[in-house]
């Protein structure tokens, strides 16, 4: 879908920070609150804006640290429905946080999150491997998140190193 310049502008403002009030976005793009609200509604309806999640560094919250694993999966696609049906069976599991169809050495890339190592092990051995078309799985545990969705974790670049007043 082609978007207007103004729609693109609103999108990139929201992508940076979706908590900016509509009133302020309207000022930023020189438009009215009604128009901006309509744009946002349209982008949501069209599922161009899919969701507004907060990006949280859970590793910093005591007791809430998650174990994240990325699993490479090889599957035999089903006749007629290809990979989609297998993918759907996998992404329905709530512990799966993302799922991509890949080219190359394996077919599906799954990210799953769990509280403990055994939770993840159980998911792989009991749920994932037992699906008919899954041929093999390779599980990689994530040790540390440096950057996610374009955001650098724990970076202190917000600090303003400038003097308070300068020419």
């Amino acid at each position, binding site marked *: 879908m082609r978007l207007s310049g103004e729609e693109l502008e609103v999108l990139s403002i929201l992508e940076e920070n979706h908590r900016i009030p509509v009133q*302020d976005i309207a*000022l930023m*793009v*020189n438009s009215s609150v009604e128009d901006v609200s309509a744009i946002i509604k349209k982008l949501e309806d069209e599922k161009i804006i899919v969701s507004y999640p907060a990006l949280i560094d859970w590793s910093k919250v005591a007791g809430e640290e998650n174990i994240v694993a990325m699993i490479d999966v090889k599957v035999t696609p089903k006749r007629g429905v290809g990979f989609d049906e297998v993918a759907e069976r996998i992404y329905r599991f709530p512990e799966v946080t993302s799922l991509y169809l890949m080219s190359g050495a394996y077919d599906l890339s799954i990210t799953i999150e769990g509280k403990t190592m055994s939770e993840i092990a159980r998911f792989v051995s009991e749920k994932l491997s037992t699906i008919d078309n899954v041929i093999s799985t390779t599980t990689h545990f994530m040790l540390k998140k440096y950057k996610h969705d374009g955001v650098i974790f724990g970076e202190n670049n917000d600090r*303003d190193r400038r003097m*308070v*007043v*300068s*020419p």
Partner: protein
Amino acid sequence: MMKEHQHYLSGMVKELKPSGIRKFFDLAASIKGVISLGVGEPDFITPWSIREAAILSLEEGYTSYTANPGLLELRQEISGYLNKRFGVQYNPVDQVIVTAGASQAIDLTFRAILNPGDEVLIIEPAFVSYAPLVTLAGGKPIPVSTHPSNGFKLTPEQIENAITTKTKAILLCSPNNPTGTYLNKEELTKIAGVVEKHDLLVISDEIYAELTYDDEYTSFASIEGMYDRTILINGFSKGFAMTGWRLGFLAAPQPFTEQMVKILQYTTMCAPHMLQHGAIEALRNTYHEVESMRRSYRRRRNYIVQSLNSIGLDCHTPGGAFYVFPSIKKTGMSSEQFAEELLLAEKVAVVPGSAFGESGEGYIRCSYATSMEQLQEAMQRIKRFMDSLESKENRVQELSTNN
């Protein structure tokens, strides 16, 4: 026993006024938790690939002097950039000089062209360094005041009125610091008419050329007949977020640059070698990042102009740079008093307009090169400050009517 230190100092230097910005900086720096709209530089950190190129340059051992006017490779990039972006042609070999910031380029220019007593027209409100640099080069800065009624745009009549037999040059800055005023091609062409008529030189400070929000940029050197009369000043500070690098450049007809290179040779030799490699990367590969910074400034400009106007601080919409220059006249305060009280009451730093010359009185400079979150907070605080002034005034009025 030494005579009093004062006795040894240069009279000319003693007479230079300290910048009004400096004074305000000292006050603001002494207060904690200040939201600053007082900075004249980008809030972005230099794009990574530029930083990396400088790191690599150091790793590879580029620690020697370069040619006085800078690395030829960089001058070639600059020449190509000026041609591609602004349609002006300069020979990289003898018409382009890399300097330690646009500041040094301006200094070199005045030193190269001024004889004692020569007058230079400075369009005010103006960047704080211009007049002192003219004075230091032995010339005489002549302020030309512009007016808010037409968005602080310079008119040919204003130049005509200021011209004397001693006038040698006029310094143009578009987009302007502190007003953000941008002069389009038509307006520059009118100015060119007077320049031609009176046989003047133009020093065109184009440091904010990458930061215009509504129009394509027109370089003064590209105006018909002006190439031979123009010394074009530009640099990396603002558009590429490289203020601390101290890298700028100038481009001019060869008879000028020939003399400037001599001065450069005796004063600084050259701009820092390893940083020049960063500048090459900046011109080659970072246009999309410049563009995204520009878009971000534009949104913030729109936001701050409308917010200030709705708070009741009248503010024209500037076409470029990252400053707005709202009027504080209706508060009845001087710009210095306003800035000081705002700082003390609400911890928001803005620069008093008077720091930029007489015609800046009655205004404050607010820089929007700061995050949206900070801007939103600053606007709330300024509103609260204005409301408090109003209620104070109402009380005074009540008191006087009751009496």
